């Protein structure tokens, strides 16, 4: 079980390369979403490793707020249209 968590954290460090060297903003956003879901899996697996059921609630709350985060970033960080008609 612990080797699985180690491999997933190493995978997240590999994915962080795309956040550092992304040409544009959506690339960094996709990489951020992937690292967030990997950390959610780490939280669920740590709950099974320590055998305490309350840690799953942490994972649930974290998943909800990760989804809201990506939506807020995609709405407010986008540049307006060239015609200036943007919502």
């Amino acid at each position, binding site marked *: 079980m612990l080797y699985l968590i180690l491999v997933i954290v190493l995978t997240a460090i590999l994915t*962080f390369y795309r956040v550092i060297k992304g040409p544009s*903003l959506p690339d960094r*956003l996709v990489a951020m979403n992937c690292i967030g879901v990997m*950390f959610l899996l780490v939280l669920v697996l740590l709950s099974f490793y320590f055998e305490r059921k309350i*840690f799953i*609630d942490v994972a649930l709350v974290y998943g909800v707020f990760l989804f809201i985060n990506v939506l807020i*970033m995609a709405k*407010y960080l986008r540049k307006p249209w060239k015609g200036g008609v943007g919502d």
Partner: protein
Amino acid sequence: MIDILFYLLLLFLIITAFFMVFTKDLSNSVITLPLFGAILVIIFVILQAPGVALAAAIMTVGLTTAFFVITINKTEY
């Protein structure tokens, strides 16, 4: 064995913190902020503190990032 995971997470925390401080663009720094919060949540879970982890998940991942993003939108663009 759990120590290796703990030190790996601390290394990742330092990398994200340095990247947040030393980038030129401000929106890149905001994108890295929830990752910093997520690593902090995992460290709290390893230290057996679920209440602090819940509060950190709501504060750092949720609210602080939303406030920063809306502030950047109202100043830059």
